[in-house]
């Protein structure tokens, strides 16, 4: 299973899973692999110069398959959701743990989100760039 925390080959697995097209944008010390599913949802996977997926971001009309894109961090994500303090009312999600950040927003039929591993961010990389 692929993706967040996985190696660059996992991006290919995600592309196949989403039945998607892919484009790669090269940056200074990382690449962005953009995967777009046929229903329009876009997943951007941020791959470091050492070949590790350190962040994923998504936007589109459907929330992507979180098990697929969170990879080995899926259980931590799921547990973090469960431990969220419950206040009535709908608002964006902002999970900030030492080893994992997950943020989601939007509204029905246009969802946005990002997840990243703070310790794996390239030097000088601002997580606000992940989108």
């Amino acid at each position, binding site marked *: 299973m692929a993706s967040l925390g996985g190696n660059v080959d996992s991006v290919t697995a995600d592309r196949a899973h989403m039945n998607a097209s892919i484009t790669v944008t090269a940056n200074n010390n990382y690449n962005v692999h953009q995967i777009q599913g046929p229903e329009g949802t876009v997943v951007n996977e941020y791959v470091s110069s050492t070949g590790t997926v350190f962040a994923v971001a998504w*936007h589109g009309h459907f929330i992507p398959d979180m098990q697929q894109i969170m990879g080995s961090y899926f259980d931590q994500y799921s547990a973090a*959701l469960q431990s969220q303090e419950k206040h009535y009312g709908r*608002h964006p999600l*902002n999970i900030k743990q030492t080893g994992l950040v997950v943020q989601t927003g939007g509204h*029905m039929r246009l*969802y946005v989100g990002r997840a990243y591993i703070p310790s794996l961010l390239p030097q000088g990389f601002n997580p606000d760039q992940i989108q």
Partner: protein
Amino acid sequence: MRSFLPPILLAALVLVSGCGGSVTTSSTSSTGTTGSSSGSNVMAISVNGGPTAGELNGSLYPNGAFASATICSPGSTTNCVTVNNLLVDTGSTGLRVLQSAVASLNLPAVNASNGSAAYDCATFVDNSYMWGPVVQASVTLGGETANNLPIHVISSSATGIPTTCSNGSTLNENTQASLGANGILGVGSEPTDCFYEGGSVCSPGSGLSSPPYPAYYTCSGNSCSPAFITTADQVTNPVALFPTDNNGVIVELPSVSGAAATISGSLIFGIGTESNNQLASTATVFTLTCDNFTTDFANNVYGITNPVTCAGPGSFIDSGSNGLFFPDATGIPACPSQTPAGDLSSFYCPASTENLSATNSSSNGTSKTTSFSVANAESLFTTASTDTDAALSGLSGLNPTGFGFDWGLPFFYGVNVYTSIDGQKVPSGAPAAPWWAY
């Protein structure tokens, strides 16, 4: 931050605001319901803390607008139940109601295109979800009825929910206690919950080789798979199926100075179709791109940058968000993660209330500047009024950079907000729907 206005001032406030509704401050227990709007196209709404508000300790739903619906078997006027405490949500589409509230009606199933009974999976911004069958009902809101309306019954059982629906979330909001409501009344800018940009990718005519998910499913035993379903059979905006006044809604709520125990207002059906729902000359119309518009705040522009992929930090108006959520562009501190009210780190906690403004604009060239306040959320949640004040005008929180501006219910206080429905006929002179106006 709470205001204690004597009744005579309250009356003046309502008149001056021009907004149908009333305010009940602080410990006054009665709730005024004398909205200035009346007619068959008017439904009473109330920001009253929801169904659990009378219970102990933090169970009040802040900044939720609630309403009642009468739900009947299709075509029947006798086999009916009235369900109260439905959350009025202009950010989603379709009526979703707890199974326990409508079980006695035995509503007929709606089938997907493969001929099997359809199930809907609705997912929300906080990664919570709702699962359950699509059924047909006649639904009356105020004095208007949508016959043969596909609605979503939220299953009380968690059995058989596909993992592509729950998607790692454990937030299955299928009880009153978990949802803080008896259901969600989605009266947003689309005609169904799988419709946008003039079409539905969930319909068999979408051209996709397989059905998108999470959305609609059919099941064999406990095994459920994504399925196509015609647009007409998708969970539908009740307003769009009204015989008249079916092109949108107006939310009218009074202004709130700081906090109020309860406020009452109206949901008006139709825009420009009756004497009581004309598009005000003072209202600015904002056409939508990917169901978003653009907000300029603190020299940052939050809007869709690619209308094809819908990329970019879109901004939106949404009565179902219970605060104003926006990127921290001005250095407002977040609340602590450990407070007497729990982890409030998603909310803002300025030392004192900040009065700010932002400018909304859209691709049709219109713009309007709006003032708003950001109060200390920890104070709002931990002062003695916590259990009694349902309307908190300054409740605000963080939307990460890149996610835009979410104008939740506090935006509606004292401002009439129009939401027109994609594909419906609009008043002459107005741009094609969908749009917002205020």
